[in-house]
C-alpha cells in the first residue's frame, strides 16, 4: 500500500512539473532559509558552552551608582584586587579565580614583528577553569613562569612557520618597555563561539610589576581593566554568592568611599559601587555593559531571527497548502474512488499527509543544496564559519527532522482533512466544484503570506531610514576628514614641536591630542565638586573627563557657547581650567552656560575654575544620549593624535603621516582610522539587521509571489468558461483582466491592513533602543504596501492576460 501511495505521489509530481516546481522550490527555499537562520541561532546559543565547567563559571562586573541609585557606569571588568579578595573571603565557595588583562603589544620574533590586539595576561589557573585544549606544554605550569607565554596554533604559523616554537623567546614592547617571553605552551585556536578570542596568553607576573609591585597592585581599585572569572562548586547557585557581595564591598572599600548621604545617613561603599556576577554562558547574549572584551550580541536578535525563520517557513507551508487545495478538484475523483473501494477517511488522511511529508523530504534535499551553496556567502557576511554537518551534529539532524515533520504535518494537514472529506457520490458524478469555504480559507492563507512579507519590507525600510539618520545626523561637531593615530612616548614628550612639524604640511589643517576622541566611549571619570549657590557641593552625577590639548575644540569644530577656549599662553590653563559641555552645566544645577563661567570646580585632585562651556555634541554613538563631559589639559592618559586634513588631500597627507610615524613610533606598523568611519562602524549591527531584513523580505516576497502565481493560474483555469462567456457577450480584454485582478488586490489590501499595525508596534519597540530616533516614517508603510500590490499585480497579470486573450471558441467548446 505504501508503494502505491509513493507511486501515485511521484507520478503526480511528474505529471504537473510546473506545480511541482513551485511547490518543491518554494518549500525548499523556505526550508533552506530556515536552516540557515537556525544554524546561526544555534551558534549564538552555543557561546561558551564548550567549557566543561561552563555552568559553574561566573564573570565579575563592576557598577557605580549615582546618589539616586541609578547605575552611572557598569563595566564588564573589575579592578585587580577584587579577584584575589573574593577568593580569599569566600574560600571553599570560589574554587578558582582567573583575571585577564588585554593589551596590544608589538611582538617580535626574529624578523617577524606585528602589533597584536588579542594578547592577554592571565592568571595561571586559566586552563583549570576553562577547557581550552593545550597541544604542547604543561597547562598547569605554563603560566606560572614569570616569562611564560602560551600561543595559539595559528600564531605559531604566523611567527614560527615550521619551526618548533617551544622554548623560543618572543620580545614584546609594551608601553615603552621591552619584555622577553618564552613560549611555554601551544594551544588550539579559541573556538568561534567564545565571548572573547585571544591569540596569546601571558603570565600575570609582568603586570604586577607595571602596577608597582604586589602591594600597589592589590591597592589599585581604580584600574578596572581586569576581566575577572570565578569557578563555583557544582550545583551552586551564584545568586547565593551575589547576596554576600555588598558586605564584601563594605568590608574592603569602607574607609575610602564612605561619605555622608543627603539626609546625613552614612552611605556605605556598596551604595556607591558594586560587583555583579554573570554566568559565563549568559555573557554573549545578555551582557551589553559599558566595557566588554568584545562586543556581544543580544538575545532580542536571536528572537527576531528565530521569528523570521518561522515566518518564512510558514509562508512556504502556506504555498503548499494553497496549491494542494487548489488542485484538489483534480484529486477529488481519486478520493471518491478510493472511498468506494473501501478506504476510510483515516487512511486517506494518512495518504495525503504522507504525500506532503515526502514532498517535504524532497524539498529538504534541495534545501540542503541551497544551504550548502549559500553558506560561504552567509559566512562571509556574518564573519563566522557556520557549517551544516549532519553526520556528526545530532542537534542539527534533530532540527532538520523537526522542520520536515513540521512542514509535512502543517502543510499536509489542511489538504488531507479537506480532501478526505469529499463525498464520493458528489465527486464521482463529475459535477464537483470546490466549495466556498475552501475559497475563503485560501484567501486567509494568501493574506497571511502577504502580511508577513509586507511587515518585513516595512521593517527593512525603517531600519535603513534609522541607519541613514544616524549616519547623516549633525553630531554637533565636524566629524569629516579627521584621522586618528596612536600616540607614542616621543609625541607626548615633545608635542608642541611635533605639532608644528606636522602643520608644516599644506594638507594638514590642525593637530591635537586627546585621551579619547569622538566615536569612543566615555569611560573615565572622577569625583566632582562644584560651586553652587556660593558654596562647594558634591556632585553626585558622573561627569566623564577627556584630557585634551589646546587645539582640540578647533580640530573638531566644537562650538563654545560661553566663556573662552584654553589659551596656550596662559600657563594656569594647563593646571586649573575646565571646559564643560551644556549637559554638565545642567546636571550641576547652573541655570545657564554664562552662569557657569568662573565658578569654582574640583575634579579628582585638580582644583580650578570653569572657563568655558561648549555646546552638547554627540561624543558617543547615537545609541547613547549626551553625557556630561569635562575637558581639561593634563598631558597624562593621552592616547590619540587627531589630524584634521584638508579636503582632497587625504592620500598625500596619509603618506606624509606614515613617514612621520615611522620615526615617531619606530618599529610599529602604521595604523590610523577616520572618525567618520569609526562612527559608521558603531552601527554595524543595525546595518546587518537591515541587510538581513532586506534579504529575508526578498525571499518571503518571492515565495509568496510564487504561491500567488500558482493560485492565480488555478483560479483562472476554473473561470475559463466564465471568461469565454463574458467575451462572447462583449467584454474587453482589459475588463477581463480587471475582473481577475480585483479579488487578489483586495486580499493584498487586507494584508496591508494587518501588517501595518504589527510592523508599527515592533519597530516602535526597536527604535526605543536609540537615544536619537527617527519619527516613524509613514511613507515606509506606503512603499511597502504599494510594492506588494505591484508585485501581486505583476504576478497575476501573466495568468489573467493569458486567460483574457484566449479565443472564447476554444474555452467554450465542450468535450
Amino acid at each position, binding site marked *: 500500500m505504501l508503494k*502505491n501511495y509513493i*507511486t501515485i505521489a511521484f507520478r503526480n509530481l511528474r505529471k504537473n512539473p510546473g506545480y511541482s516546481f513551485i511547490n518543491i522550490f518554494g518549500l525548499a527555499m523556505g526550508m533552506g532559509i530556515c536552516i540557515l537562520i537556525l544554524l546561526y541561532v544555534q551558534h549564538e546559543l552555543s557561546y561558551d558552552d564548550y567549557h566543561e565547567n561552563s555552568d559553574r563559571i561566573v564573570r565579575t562586573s563592576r557598577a557605580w551608582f549615582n546618589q539616586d541609585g541609578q547605575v552611572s557606569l557598569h563595566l564588564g571588568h573589575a579592578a585587580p584586587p577584587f579577584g584575589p579578595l573574593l577568593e580569599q573571603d569566600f574560600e571553599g565557595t570560589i574554587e578558582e579565580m582567573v583575571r585577564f588583562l588585554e593589551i596590544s603589544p608589538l611582538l617580535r620574533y626574529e624578523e617577524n614583528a606585528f602589533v597584536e590586539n588579542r594578547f592577554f595576561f592571565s592568571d595561571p589557573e586559566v586552563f583549570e577553569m576553562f577547557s581550552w585544549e593545550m597541544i604542547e606544554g604543561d597547562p598547569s605550569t605554563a603560566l606560572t613562569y614569570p616569562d611564560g607565554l602560551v600561543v595559539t596554533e595559528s600564531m605559531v604559523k604566523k611567527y614560527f612557520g615550521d619551526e618548533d616554537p617551544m622554548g623560543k623567546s618572543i620580545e614584546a614592547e609594551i608601553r615603552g618597555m621591552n619584555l622577553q617571553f618564552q613560549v611555554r605552551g601551544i594551544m588550539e585556536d579559541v573556538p568561534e563561539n567564545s565571548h572573547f578570542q585571544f591569540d596569546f596568553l601571558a603570565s600575570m607576573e609582568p603586570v604586577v610589576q607595571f602596577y608597582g609591585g604586589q602591594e600597589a597592585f592589590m591597592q589599585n581599585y581604580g584600574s578596572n581593566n581586569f576581566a575577572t572569572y570565578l569557578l563555583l562548586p557544582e550545583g551552586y547557585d551564584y545568586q547565593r554568592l551575589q547576596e554576600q557581595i555588598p558586605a564584601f564591598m563594605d568590608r574592603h572599600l569602607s574607609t575610602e568611599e564612605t561619605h555622608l548621604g543627603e539626609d546625613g545617613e552614612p552611605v556605605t561603599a556598596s551604595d556607591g559601587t558594586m560587583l555583579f556576577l554573570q554566568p559565563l554562558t549568559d555573557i554573549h547574549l545578555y551582557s551589553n555593559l559599558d566595557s566588554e572584551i568584545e562586543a556581544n550580541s543580544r538575545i532580542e536578535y536571536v528572537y527576531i531571527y528565530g521569528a523570521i525563520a518561522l515566518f518564512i517557513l510558514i509562508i512556504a507551508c502556506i504555498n503548499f497548502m494553497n496549491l494542494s487545495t487548489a488542485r484538489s478538484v483534480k484529486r477529488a475523483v481519486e478520493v*471518491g*474512488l*478510493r472511498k468506494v473501494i473501501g478506504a476510510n*477517511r483515516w487512511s486517506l488522511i494518512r495518504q495525503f499527509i504522507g504525500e506532503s511529508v515526502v514532498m517535504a523530504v524532497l524539498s529538504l534535499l534541495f534545501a540542503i543544496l541551497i544551504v550548502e551553496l549559500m553558506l560561504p556567502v552567509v559566512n562571509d557576511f556574518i564573519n563566522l564559519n557556520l557549517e551544516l554537518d549532519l553526520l556528526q551534529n545530532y542537534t542539527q539532524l534533530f532540527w532538520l527532522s523537526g522542520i520536515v515533520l513540521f512542514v509535512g504535518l502543517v502543510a499536509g494537514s489542511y489538504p488531507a482533512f479537506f480532501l478526505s472529506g469529499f*463525498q464520493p457520490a458528489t465527486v*464521482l458524478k*463529475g459535477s464537483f466544484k470546490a466549495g466556498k469555504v475552501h475559497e475563503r480559507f485560501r484567501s486567509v492563507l494568501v493574506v497571511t503570506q502577504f502580511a508577513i512579507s509586507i511587515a518585513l519590507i516595512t521593517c527593512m525600510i525603517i531600519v535603513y531610514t534609522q541607519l541613514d539618520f544616524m549616519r547623516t545626523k549633525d553630531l554637533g561637531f565636524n566629524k569629516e576628514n579627521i584621522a586618528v593615530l596612536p600616540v607614542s612616548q616621543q609625541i607626548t614628550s615633545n608635542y608642541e614641536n611635533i605639532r608644528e612639524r606636522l602643520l608644516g604640511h599644506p594638507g594638514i589643517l590642525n593637530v591635537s591630542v586627546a585621551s579619547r576622541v569622538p566615536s569612543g566611549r566615555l569611560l573615565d571619570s572622577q569625583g566632582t565638586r562644584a560651586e553652587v549657590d556660593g558654596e562647594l557641593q558634591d556632585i553626585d552625577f558622573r561627569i566623564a573627563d577627556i584630557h585634551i590639548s589646546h587645539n582640540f575644540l578647533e580640530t573638531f569644530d566644537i562650538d563654545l557657547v560661553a566663556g573662552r577656549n584654553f589659551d596656550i599662553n596662559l600657563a594656569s590653563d594647563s593646571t586649573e581650567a575646565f571646559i564643560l559641555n551644556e549637559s554638565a552645566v545642567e546636571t550641576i544645577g547652573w541655570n545657564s552656560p554664562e552662569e557657569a563661567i568662573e565658578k569654582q570646580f574640583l575634579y579628582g585632585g585638580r582644583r580650578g575654575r570653569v572657563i568655558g562651556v561648549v555646546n552638547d555634541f554627540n561624543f558617543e554613538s547615537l545609541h547613547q544620549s549626551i553625557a556630561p563631559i569635562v575637558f581639561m589639559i593634563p598631558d597624562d592618559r593621552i592616547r590619540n593624535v587627531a589630524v584634521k586634513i584638508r579636503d582632497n588631500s587625504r592620500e598625500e597627507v596619509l603618506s606624509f603621516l606614515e613617514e612621520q610615524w615611522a620615526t615617531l613610533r619606530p618599529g610599529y606598523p602604521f595604523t590610523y582610522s577616520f572618525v567618520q568611519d569609526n562612527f559608521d562602524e558603531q552601527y554595524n549591527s543595525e546595518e546587518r539587521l537591515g541587510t538581513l531584513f532586506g534579504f529575508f523580505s526578498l525571499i518571503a516576497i518571492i515565495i509568496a509571489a510564487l504561491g500567488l502565481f500558482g493560485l492565480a493560474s488555478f483560479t483562472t483555469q476554473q473561470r475559463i468558461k466564465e471568461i469565454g462567456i463574458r467575451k462572447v457577450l462583449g467584454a474587453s480584454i482589459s475588463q477581463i483582466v480587471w475582473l481577475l485582478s480585483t479579488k487578489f488586490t483586495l486580499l493584498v489590501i487586507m494584508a496591508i491592513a494587518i501588517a501595518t499595525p504589527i510592523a508599527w508596534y515592533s519597530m516602535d519597540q526597536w527604535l526605543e533602543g536609540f537615544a536619537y530616533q527617527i519619527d516613524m516614517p509613514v511613507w515606509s508603510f506606503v512603499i511597502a504596501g504599494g510594492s506588494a500590490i505591484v508585485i501581486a499585480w505583476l504576478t497575476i497579470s501573466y495568468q489573467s492576460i493569458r486567460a483574457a486573450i484566449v479565443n472564447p471558441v476554444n474555452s467554450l467548446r465542450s468535450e
Partner: protein
Amino acid sequence: MIKLKKIYKYIDKRFQRTFILKDIDLEVKEGDFITVMGPSGAGKSTLLNILGFLDDASEGEYFFLDEPVHNLTEKRKSDYHKSHIGFVFQAYHLIDELTVYENIEMPLLYRKVKSKKRKAMVAEMLDRFNIVAKKDLFPPQLSGGQQQVVGVARAIIGSPKLLLADEPTGNLHSEQSEEIMEMFTKLNKEGVTIIQVTHSEKMAGYGNRIVNLKDGVVVEENPYDE
C-alpha cells in the same frame, strides 16, 4: 439480499421540501440482474448511491444481507465496500496516474491481500478480460471501451456479491457497450447480483428485471414481464 422499505430522499430548502425519492419499496434477491430506468432527474443515481452506501436515505429502512444499513458505522460500511460491493461508473474513474495493472490491484491493497496472492489475482483478471498486453499502459492511452473493461475488472477483482453500475455504457459506442453487457451477463451467471442504471432500452434487455422510476416514484416494475 437487499430490502428497501419506504425509502424517502429529500432536500429541505427554506420552506420547500424537494423529493428525490418517494416511498421506494424494493427487494433484490441474490443473482438478480436489475436495470433501473427512467428519465433524467428521476432519482436513478440517487437510488444507486443509497444502495451502494454512498448516500443515506432521509427516511425508511434499508437491509443489506439482513443487516440494517441505516445503523451501520462508517467502518462497517467501508468493510462492505471492500468485500461485498463493486462499482462501475459511466466516466470509468480510473486513476490516471496508475497503470492498468495498478488500477486493478488497488482494491486488493485496501483489503490487505498479500503481495503474491495479489499478483495471481490481478494476472487472472488481466487474462480473463484479455488485457494482458495493456497492463503497463496508463488509462489515457486506452480507448473508452478498454477503460471500462479495466473499470469492470477493478470492480469485480474483490469478488463482490453486488455490482452497482451507473450508466456503464453511457460513454461507449454500441459495439463496446455490447461487449460490456455480455461481460455483465456472464458475471451474473456466475452468481454476482447486478444493479445497473441506464437510459438505453437495449442495454436494459440484458437484465432480468426492470425498475422504472419517474419523479422519484417506482412506476412500473418489469414492464417486459407480461
